[in-house]
């Protein structure tokens, strides 16, 4: 660095603090070192699967989307691909593309794979008893059926189910309760969607999977972002600022439209229940999880 010493001057060189808008502040909050995160999550999986729970294998519901793809990559890195079972569970209206993308992951990693079609199981209930069920109900039945299969296949193969819910959808409550969130461990639950994309790219998840619009593939043509009314990128920035502790007013003052802040905050505020276990009436001073407290791994 060259030092520049000027002579005496009447007017001083003025150096201004650079202005930071919401996008810049949020970018700092969302920044990750993907190599470090990969290593940490690999260590997490090894510790929680092998050391803590004495499993050798993991089982993942592989949908063809980026979240389950990334989790499959992480499990393969942690346990070796021969110890990872990816299960594709299409319904008859699932897109061909989803199945093909899941196959790309299987081929790239060399993990074990099973394909179990859920149509008969789902229709066995819906067509027989509830033929008029709407799309939302049908989607939830499918998600819960997939959960049943994952847990049963887990028992069959002695493989621990690994979850795939990311932080953005967890905060939005955008998942089927006691289904998508049911696997006992989840490596990506503290990563926002935009961080999932970044880590997935870093780990070599095929770009066709990373770059496509996120979709639950429960209803044809549906995408997450069209459901939300806001993109994940914008939502993640607002979520990062909100969770940091910045007030609604302060975030708006940083330049974020109030409609977007209110949309995001509204979704988070209306779904706290979903991030907890069921509500139990407290009657004693030994009420479980109020008074009687033991950590998950005690």
């Amino acid at each position, binding site marked *: 660095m060259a030092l520049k010493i000027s002579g005496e001057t009447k007017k001083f060189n003025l150096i201004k603090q650079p202005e930071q808008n919401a996008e810049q502040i949020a970018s700092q909050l969302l920044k*990750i070192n993907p190599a470090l995160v990969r290593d940490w999550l690999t260590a997490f999986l090894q510790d929680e699967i092998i050391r803590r729970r004495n499993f050798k294998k993991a089982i993942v519901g592989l949908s063809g989307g980026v979240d389950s793809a990334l989790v499959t990559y992480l499990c393969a890195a942690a346990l070796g691909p021969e110890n990872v079972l990816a299960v594709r569970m299409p319904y008859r209206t699932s897109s061909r593309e989803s199945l093909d993308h899941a196959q790309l992951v299987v081929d790239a990693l060399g993990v074990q794979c099973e394909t179990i079609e859920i149509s008969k199981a789902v229709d066995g209930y819906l067509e027989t008893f509830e033929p008029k069920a709407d799309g939302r109900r049908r989607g939830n039945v499918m998600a819960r059926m997939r959960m049943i299969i994952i847990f049963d296949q887990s028992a069959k193969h002695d493989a621990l189910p690994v979850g795939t819910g990311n932080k953005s959808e967890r905060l939005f409550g955008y998942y089927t309760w006691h289904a998508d969130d049911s696997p006992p461990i989840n490596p990506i639950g503290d990563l926002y969607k935009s961080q999932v994309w970044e880590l997935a790219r870093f780990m070599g998840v095929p770009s066709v999977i990373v770059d496509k619009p996120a979709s639950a593939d429960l209803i044809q043509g549906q995408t997450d972002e069209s459901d939300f009314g806001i993109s994940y990128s914008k939502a993640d920035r607002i979520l990062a600022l909100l969770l940091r502790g910045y007030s609604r007013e302060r975030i708006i003052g940083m330049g974020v439209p109030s409609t977007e802040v209110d949309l995001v905050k509204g979704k988070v505020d209306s779904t706290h229940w979903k991030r907890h276990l069921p509500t139990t009436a407290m009657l004693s001073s030994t009420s479980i999880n109020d008074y009687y407290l033991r950590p998950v791994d*005690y």
Partner: protein
Amino acid sequence: MTQNEGKINLLLAQFHPKKGDYAHNVRRVGDIFEQIASEGLKVDVVTLPETGLTGYFLEGGVRESARRQGQVFKDLQAEYLKRCGPNAPLLDITFGYYEEYNGAFYNAALYLTLGAEEKAENSWKPGIIHNHRKFFLPTYGVFDEERFVSRGRKVAAFDTRFGKAGVLICEDVWHSITSTILALQGAQIIYVGNASPARTFATDEPGNLTRWRELVKSVSDEHNLYMVLTNLVGFEGGKGFIGGSVVTNPFGEVVLNGPVADECLLQVQIDLADMVVARAENPLLADLQNGLPDLVAELNAIERH
């Protein structure tokens, strides 16, 4: 001066305890004793992390896992003599555990001398040298300590076979006042046991690991003493502890850095004579001692809200 002439041979055990299994963890400490003996390692003081005998996040399980200090000494002494023989030489050890005393529970750390009674030297014999109860209990964010344990009320340097030492636990060190008190009391080395779950992954290492290293460096640099930071490793319910145990010298320099996240033993020899050199250059502690009465007056004048 001790027979070591001011040198202390440290062995930091960056350790992953089995959750809630005191007996198992005592046996694993025994594995360390056995390794010292079988590999002929020259060790004066072994250090373990905060809650090294039980794991950190116990919630109400503190009631089942807490032990009295006397019991812990007996158990470790028995383990040491079993592994290294009835004539085992004196060995000091400092580590964290959950303590029960008089019906109250504490996040505490013991400093013990273990070994055969016959090996007593210069009036130092096996026993409890010091017990520190964590003074500052983090009860915010992921931490919930004051819900399950009570606060300690003392910060005190104590004499060991190797000079004057202090023990602090985790958040104790984040308040500069505690290490300042120990330094004023004459501590030459401060042992810090730590259980720090990793958070922020934006740079080359977890952000709190960087912060910890800078913290102990600055304490060493200000008071010209040795800091020995021993960190938990492994995951507890998804929360992974940082590792990265570190020793810093009286010049504020890192002597040895442990790896992130892995269990290991770190062997370091320090020389208390470095304190004299560092303080000659940088007599801040002497300046503080001179200004102390005025500062205490300022502290006493702070209004209570």
